């Protein structure tokens, strides 16, 4: 009887949480008709926002992969002075309000700063440009890949790494042939989370890149812009597309990981 009550309570509380997610989605998906929705995607500005969003977010994933995996490996496997500070620093963007991130990047890269002036003098303009969007998104979303990859590296049996060393492998060989393949699910998970976070990034991007239609307007900026100017149809269309993409990619990823786990990760 007690178990029944407990399970009932757990189900009810979980149900409330699911409603918190489902009701707003329901409101969004019933706000427009399918024909109206299809019409919105003929607008070149909306198509451009979609293209910019995908271009920048996928570039962010690649950049995070190249820069984040080594950082994750460093934090997971090495002991060095100041490691805790570095670890906290890497996590900081997750806690920082995106607007603050945007402001910081604006101050660093803007023409009035020495660094910004230095870059500008060499023809590199990051403010109000797509590279600026990438920087802002990388700053905000990159830590997700690092966190996930780090956990994956840490989960690998230490003796497996030692076995590789005792068999004569160099650290790089062990990293390439043992650690990367074993951590790949964690890295994939980090890539998906980074991509989803970058795709949905708004605050930092708006501060650094502004909202120039066809040039720096991403999907989230477009949703905000259209909603503010009363064009709710366009705003809803982009929002729905964003949700469909995020949900589908997460679902595909999760089912793929679940299928892979028994054959590669267990011992």
């Amino acid at each position, binding site marked *: 009887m007690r178990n029944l009550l407990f399970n009932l309570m757990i189900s009810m509380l979980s149900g409330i949480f699911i409603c918190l997610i489902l009701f707003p989605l329901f409101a969004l998906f019933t706000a427009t008709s399918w024909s109206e929705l299809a019409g919105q995607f003929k607008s070149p500005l909306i198509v451009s926002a979609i293209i910019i969003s995908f271009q920048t977010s996928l570039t962010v994933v690649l950049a995070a992969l190249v820069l984040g995996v080594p950082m994750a490996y460093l934090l997971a496997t090495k002991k060095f002075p100041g490691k805790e500070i570095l670890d906290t620093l890497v996590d900081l963007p997750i806690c920082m309000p995106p607007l603050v991130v945007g402001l910081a990047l604006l101050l660093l890269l803007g023409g009035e700063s020495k660094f910004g002036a230095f870059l500008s003098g060499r023809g590199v303009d990051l403010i109000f440009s797509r590279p600026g969007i990438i920087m802002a998104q990388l700053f905000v979303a990159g830590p997700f890949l690092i966190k996930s990859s780090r956990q994956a590296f840490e989960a690998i049996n230490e*003796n497996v790494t030692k076995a590789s*060393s*005792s*068999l*004569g492998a160099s650290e790089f060989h062990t990293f390439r*042939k*043992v650690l990367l393949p074993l951590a790949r699910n964690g890295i994939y998970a980090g890539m998906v989370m980074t991509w989803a976070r970058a795709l949905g990034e708004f605050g930092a991007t708006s501060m650094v890149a502004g909202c120039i239609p066809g040039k720096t307007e991403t999907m989230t900026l477009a949703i905000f812009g259209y909603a503010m100017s009363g064009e709710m149809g366009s705003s809803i269309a982009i929002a729905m597309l964003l949700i469909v993409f995020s949900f589908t990619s997460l679902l595909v990823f999760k089912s793929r990981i679940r299928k892979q786990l028994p054959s590669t990760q267990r*011992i």
Partner: protein
Amino acid sequence: MDIALRQISKSYDGRPVLENLDLDVAAGEFHVLLGPSGGGKTTMVSVIAGLTKADIGSVLIGGRDVSLLPPGRRKVGLVFQDYALFPHLDVFDNIAYGLRVRKLREAKIAQKLKYYLEKTGLEKEKHTFPHQLSGGQKQRVALLRTLVTEPEVLLLDEPMSSLDVLTREQISAELVNIHRKTELTTIYVTHNQAEAFSLGDRISVLHNGKIEQIETPEELFYHPKTEFVARFVGINNILKAKVAATNRYEAVMEINNEGLSQAFMLRAKNYPVFKKGEEINLCLHPEKIDLSKKNEARDNGGNRICGKIAERTNHGNVFKVTIDIGGLALHAVIPKSLFNFQVYEDVWVDFAPDALHPLCGRRCREPEFSRKCHNISSPELVGVCRTDA
């Protein structure tokens, strides 16, 4: 290749794990490191393999100081307690790993592995992943993965701790066979005394980062130097004794363990360390104890005390019996065929003087003239009877 450890010390977070450790393992020797968990055994093999750097001291293999060499250049093979197979690689790729690191041609690797896989009966499993293998198969793969690289020294870190008894016996026989054929210098880590006694040419007992005793199995069992070693090899009868008298052959010892209602005298062989009036710990080998119902004199030169059977536990073909001697718990190992007593029954406990051995912290040998059991023509029984049985 012989192995020598010189003054090896290692601490983790200020806690010493190995302290000034010296060890010499002869070329071709099968050496067992025996000790309880947390005693530093794994750290020691890790230091030899080069996976852990000692704080001070040096490791010599074949007379060459390898302390600063990376693991791959020491020619040391290490088999881990949990096998540490690469979970994303199948059996073939696991075994081939070390050969590929050495950049052997694939054709050569295939040829070499074919021979080994057939010999170990793993041919059918060569495309199987580690999680699909049994414990024994995993162990064979781990061993093979190390052996194919042709190391000069083999380190086995509790390789059979998670195997069932039958598989353990099989693998144990295979290890002996491999060692006989390859004559590879081997260090085998275990906390299992039975494994140590059956496999080792010599055994080092490691306790709290220090080697308490290095001996052949026979010597270690019959001449433990310390109380820890005695208890670890299964001798739980530690008697606190005071030397009451000595003659050329024998010593009379006054036993006064804590909890004993009344001190009593025992006869032991005379060892050079016995000095009248000195206190010393003795161990009494449980398998050298006889039990009888009647107070009959025996020709073992002996000790006879009476007590009560307090407990009896079943261990295959023997009983482990606890006898209460006036508050002192004495442990005996009695073959089932000779045991016809009831629990709580009064019994006479007999043992010869050579069943007692001093735990003096160093190698205690009895003097030459008394090594063979000295027959006493009319033994005067020494002991105390708690009851009138």
